[in-house]
């Protein structure tokens, strides 16, 4: 047979075609309305600029919507979702081809294209949709992963897709059989149906079955199109849109400043406090539960669940009218849901949950449609802290201490310069020509264990001949804990004060061993008048090693694993520099934990959580300690004063199992400079001259 003649009759056996067009029009109308009311509600949100930089956005879209960058990170989901997703795309293209052929009268459904694509490929992908739906159903009904939300809606969606695919194959088969289609075998599944049917049914019966089947299929398809925007299937539209409008900044820059002059409400009290993008986030959620499954607080059994927060807020949003309720403002009968206080009304936004978030952003990183859960949690905290002054007592103590002493550690007995006893470290006031400012940080200066880290760092810088200085007693907290706890006002004051001081000293380059300070300087200070070249000490030290200014001489024999600090890794994408330091200082390289790099698991200390006493049986650091022990490593390297404290507590609590030491990468490097360099792990004298004296 000549392939070039291959085609089929479109709408064979179908009369009253106008009815199909009518169904299509109605279904499109209902679907459009469904999309419209969602978008109309977003438009009630506050402003956000999310359509700038189109080239970058397009790239993001290709990578994460088209190529499903994040979706495929998870095996089960990767398989079934890829099957259904690609099947949908192929089938939509096929339908468009039919449209072009039939309605525009352009003959495209011909020849090799008809056979290879329109018949064979379409059939195969249709079959994949069926398989995908079956996998999803088995997962939902039998495997039952904890992270999913079990709704009837989800099952009905699977049923509908399944029915559409099955009816599609049936009518294809009946058509092939009844028309004795010479090209029928190019559609393997349809051909199979045709073979079976023609052995048990008469031609007339198949014609009738085809007619009924065809209209059923059409009704299902159009019904599904109409219904989808009202279900989580809306993610087909809103998912890609959400990816296109995602934040292009590093996660560490996700928190917005507040205009204190203009803000009517500080933080987010009600839906009306969110931007349109926040509201769009709610509608984009696919209910996949990845965010909650990676949430450290949730993992250790706390009530916080970012997925539930997003879904509950979506449910609340859907109760809101699309226009401001005229009665609402003056306390009329029906208050506008848009103004309803969220905390207290929305179950998953309970204070207990909100005060469990470490702001680790594992949720943000995991979300396939780029929803930003963590900044919303901070928005709600802001309201509690600044408008209600309602937050945990121990956090209040930290905030009060920040206000009056410029550091969050109430009762700290060390001064800002004690750590430098006996070292030749100068303040910037004494050494105005310093090229680098070593930002010590409150943790580094005031917590005894961390003083050793700063000491090692300073000694390494000195050894490398870097002209550096510190602020000494003039240093104040960068404001990170205040900001994550939700006291934006205090953060802004500290940021402006620090930026002014640094600018007065003409500081250009900052090196710090605290990832929180690092993130704040790098991503947040530019908005408050402070723009510097900022390095985490691991980055700076790695560079000094590269330049040959630091030469390790001995290699650590122990097996070492590395814990990624959230604010260094996930928030800022610095993964390699600290690993490199471990690599060069040890003989055996880095053993990775089950969760590392971008999907690393928090130590439990961020977001002000260091200032809260966690219940004994629900401690994030102990879960991380479990992962550390599971590697069999003797030593866990860290790059953050908070991680150091949290993980030391964590592994100590599991001491019965095995002894593991916790050391900062700078300490490990310093030790490798000289086997004698254990000075920093010993206690040092207190008679040395201190900088600034």
């Amino acid at each position, binding site marked *: 047979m000549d392939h070039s003649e291959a085609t089929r009759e479109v709408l064979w056996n179908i009369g009253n075609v106008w009815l199909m067009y009518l169904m299509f029009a109605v279904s499109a109308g209902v679907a459009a309305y469904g999309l419209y009311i969602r978008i109309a509600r977003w438009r009630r949100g506050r402003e956000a600029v999310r359509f700038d930089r189109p080239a970058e956005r397009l790239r993001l879209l290709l990578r994460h919507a088209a190529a499903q960058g994040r979706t495929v990170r998870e095996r089960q989901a990767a398989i079934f979702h890829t099957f259904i997703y690609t099947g949908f795309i192929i089938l939509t293209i096929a339908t468009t081809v039919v449209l072009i052929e039939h309605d525009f009268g352009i003959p495209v459904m011909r020849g090799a294209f008809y056979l290879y694509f329109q018949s064979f490929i379409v059939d195969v992908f249709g079959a994949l949709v069926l398989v995908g739906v079956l996998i999803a159903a088995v997962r939902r009904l039998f495997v039952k992963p904890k992270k999913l939300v079990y709704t009837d809606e989800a099952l009905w969606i699977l049923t509908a897709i399944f029915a559409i695919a099955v009816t599609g194959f049936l009518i294809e088969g009946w058509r092939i059989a009844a028309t004795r289609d010479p090209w029928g075998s190019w559609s393997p599944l349809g051909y199979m149906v045709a073979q079976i049917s023609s052995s048990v049914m008469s031609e007339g019966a198949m014609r009738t079955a085809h007619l009924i089947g065809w209209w059923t299929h059409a009704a299902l398809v159009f019904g599904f199109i109409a219904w989808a925007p009202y279900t989580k299937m809306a993610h087909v539209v809103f998912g890609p849109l959400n990816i296109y409008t995602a934040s292009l900044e590093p996660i560490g820059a996700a928190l917005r400043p507040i205009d204190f002059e203009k803000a009517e409400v500080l933080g987010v009290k009600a839906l009306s406090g969110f931007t349109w993008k926040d509201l769009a986030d709610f509608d984009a959620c696919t209910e996949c539960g990845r965010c909650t499954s990676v949430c450290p607080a949730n993992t250790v059994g706390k009530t916080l669940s970012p997925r539930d927060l997003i879904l509950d807020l979506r449910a609340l949003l859907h109760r809101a009218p699309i226009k401001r309720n005229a009665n609402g403002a003056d306390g009329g009968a029906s208050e506008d849901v848009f103004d309803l206080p969220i905390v207290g009304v929305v179950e998953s936004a309970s204070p207990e949950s909100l005060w469990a978030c470490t702001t680790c952003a594992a949720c943000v990183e995991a979300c396939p449609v780029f929803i930003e859960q963590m900044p919303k949690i901070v928005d709600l905290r802001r309201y509690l802290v*600044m408008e209600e*002054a309602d937050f945990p007592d121990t956090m209040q103590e930290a905030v009060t201490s920040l206000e009056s002493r410029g550091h969050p550690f109430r*009762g*700290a*007995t060390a001064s*800002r310069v*004690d750590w430098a006893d006996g070292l030749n470290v100068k303040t910037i006031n004494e050494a105005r020509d310093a090229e680098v400012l070593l930002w010590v940080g409150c943790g580094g200066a005031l917590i005894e264990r961390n003083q050793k880290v700063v000491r090692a760092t300073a000694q390494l810088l000195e050894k490398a001949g870097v002209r550096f200085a510190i602020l000494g*007693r003039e240093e104040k907290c960068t404001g990170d804990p205040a900001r994550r706890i939700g006291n934006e006002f205090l953060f802004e004051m500290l940021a402006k004060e620090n930026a002014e001081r640094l600018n007065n000293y003409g500081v250009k380059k900052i090196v710090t061993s605290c990832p929180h300070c690092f993130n704040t300087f790098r991503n947040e200070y530019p908005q408050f008048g402070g723009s510097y070249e900022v390095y985490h000490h691991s980055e700076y030290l790695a560079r000094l090693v590269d330049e040959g200014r630091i030469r390790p001489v001995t290699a650590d024999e122990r097996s070492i694993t590395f814990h990624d600090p959230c604010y260094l890794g996930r928030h800022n994408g610095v993964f390699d520099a600290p690993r490199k330091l471990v690599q060069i200082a040890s003989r055996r390289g880095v053993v990775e934990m089950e969760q590392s790099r971008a999907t690393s698991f928090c130590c439990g200390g961020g977001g002000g959580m260091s200032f809260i006493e966690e219940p004994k049986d629900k401690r994030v650091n102990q879960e991380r300690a479990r992962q550390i022990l599971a590697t069999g490593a003797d030593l866990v390297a860290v790059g953050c004063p908070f991680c150091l404290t949290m993980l030391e507590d964590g592994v100590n609590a599991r001491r019965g199992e095995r002894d593991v030491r916790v050391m900062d990468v700078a300490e490990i490097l310093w030790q490798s400079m000289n086997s004698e360099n254990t000075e920093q792990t010993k206690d040092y004298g207190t008679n040395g001259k201190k900088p600034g004296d």
Partner: protein
Amino acid sequence: MNIIVCLKQILDPLIPVRDFRIDPELRAAVQGSASLVTNIFCENALETALQLRERAGGKITVLAFGAPSAEDSLRKALAMKADDAVLVVNDGNVHPDPMAVARVLAAAIRKIGAFDLVMLGRESGDWGAGQTGGLLAEELGVASVSFVDAIEVADGESHLKLHLKRQTDTGWERVAAPTPLVVTVTNDEHNVPRIPKTRDVMMSYRQPLAKWTLDELGIDAAAVRAGGDYYRVVDLSIPVRETKCELVSGDSLEDKVSDLAARILQVTRAM
């Protein structure tokens, strides 16, 4: 009820030990890089007053006598929702004695007007003299109750309008007192100072705050500026703690024990 709460701004008592310095000439602590805070007992007094106002209504005026920086303490009190604030600016001796302070406060209170209750902290975290409350009551010619941690307004017509709970060395007492009254307040789990709302902190900077000079009060301003003559600090020093480590010697346990005993005797005799 008209309540006046006196607040004192002091050097942060939580200053790291090694940052604490004394100026031997001035016989006073050096501020250095340490911050200034409101004396905690004064904040307990303010918190008690705020709770009393929530139950009994009325008005709270906060009053401070101190350096211009003491305005911060008053602003914070306004943020905690005190109604009015008055600062008497001290342009003389930085550490006037309690009698001088009491005279200034009494004059300022007379200028503020009628009051039912004056509340102070039981003592300040810097000098810890604990005298100002009693002396102030004396100056104002009214009764005083010290170490109070709870105040209730009695129902009915009794002239003993206030029921107070005060801490004693062995427990607590309940007393009733007429107004006007001066009380000094001590800390208790119920009067932990509240955290002001940020909104109120912002507003506090826009609220009026009266600033009076010593000369406006009709007292012997010169004597106050000189620091008063109630008592004088003669010497001030940081105690030096010395620790010495000696090893007990001897071959047998018995030798060691007798060596230890001998040394203990030596040391105790020397004391």
